[in-house]
């Protein structure tokens, strides 16, 4: 899914990274450079040195469904229905078809009621959910989610995870929930801009047993 060679970009310093898998979790302390790396892999920023590919292509050539850590900052429209439909309308999908896709997406996420609301009236978690819906409606090649789950309750996180799994869309997600990271195919642990560990969850968390970056459910089973 991801291939990085000699990337030097702001605080990111990654000599080599090869990641396979359909669900990839990026974890690490605050300020480790997780958002910077995600922005590069989403094609939102050009790297100063080195190279990166996503799904075998340059990040700029990949259709990315992006949800950032400030979902309300990226909202463009005052009505939720317009916000969720934005990417479809920008790509000139016919109105009736766009409405159908939007309603289907919100129904899949269990909150079709939000479509009649104004974005300014949404709670923090609801804004994250709407941003996710807007990211998924245009059938992206990959979803890149920057700590979206930190604004969401457990039931909503599960609903999103189930929706993503059903869609089969490859997902790269950053999270501070280690129990959730443990469900990924591959985990990357970033610290001070460097990849400290990268591999299957059992291998990565095996290196992190002594600190708090260890799944609480695994800790309970010990």
């Amino acid at each position, binding site marked *: 899914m991801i291939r990085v060679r000699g990337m030097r970009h702001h605080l990111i310093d990654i000599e080599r990274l090869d990641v396979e898998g359909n669900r990839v979790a990026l974890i*690490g*302390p*605050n*300020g480790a450079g997780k*958002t910077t790396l995600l922005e590069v892999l989403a094609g939102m920023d050009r790297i100063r040195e080195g190279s990166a590919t996503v799904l075998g292509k340059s990040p700029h050539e990949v259709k990315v469904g992006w949800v950032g*850590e*400030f979902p*309300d*900052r990226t909202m463009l429209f005052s009505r939720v229905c317009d916000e969720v439909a934005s990417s479809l309308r920008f790509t000139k999908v016919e109105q009736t078809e766009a409405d159908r896709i939007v309603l289907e997406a919100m129904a899949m996420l269990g909150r079709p009621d939000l479509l009649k*609301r104004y974005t300014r*009236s*949404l*709670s*923090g*978690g*609801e804004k*994250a*959910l709407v941003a996710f819906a807007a990211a998924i409606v245009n059938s992206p090649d990959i979803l890149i989610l920057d*700590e979206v789950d*930190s*604004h*969401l*309750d*457990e*039931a*909503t996180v599960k609903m999103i995870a189930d929706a993503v799994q059903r869609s089969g869309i490859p997902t790269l997600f950053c999270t*501070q*929930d*280690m*129990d959730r990271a443990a469900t990924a195919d591959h985990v990357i642990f970033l610290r001070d801009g460097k990849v400290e560990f990268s591999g299957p969850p059992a291998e990565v968390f095996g290196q992190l047993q002594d*600190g*708090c*970056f260890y799944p*609480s*459910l695994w*800790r*309970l089973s010990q």
Partner: protein
Amino acid sequence: MRADLDFIAEREDFKLRCAASYSEGVHLVSGIIGSGKSTMALVMASLLQCQGSYSTKGVQRTILSMQFPEYHITSSSLDDEVRSWGLDPRDVLPRAGMEGRGAIDPFKLSRGQLKRLNLACVFALDPDILLLDEPFSSLDCMVKSRVCKAIESRQDKITMVFSHERSVLPRVDSISHIADGELRYHGNTPDAVMQWSSPPPYLRKALERGARPKNIALQDSMEALCAIRD
């Protein structure tokens, strides 16, 4: 010191009913997204009008820490931002892990770093009532643990924690849950642990195995499981 709630708050077509009393200690209010946690916090911060009554006794100062820390930003440097709270940056920035970074723009920080800065400010002010709306969102587990300690240390004040956090929670004195537009007070810990309708996964797992944790922190679940193994 106490806060008495008996009100109905309305926002657009949403209605929230709250009837409860909170005294000194740490009080958790859980609920799914959009359930009304922030609405309750806004009423307690006197930022939203309600029908009925919200009153306090022995309370001089209430401070709300909002879910999205960028909503608090009023200045263009970290130094000025800390000063806007009436605090000295030399005291607060080191506590936020930002010593020597006073000149930078707050919007250059990640949301997790902004949250750390905001929490360092509100804890430094030590208000009688501290309303923490999703205090753990965007924080890594090391910072979450430090925030838990700061919350637990405020035993002589009222601390309201509005959260759906799943991994790192502080020890609390009472648990309430909002569902279907109504605040449900589950009572004091340890009894409230068994009554709580939405425990985090680790606590749910411990309860399923027959453990009886005394409180809601991960450590409590681990100790309770050890007790039934012994």
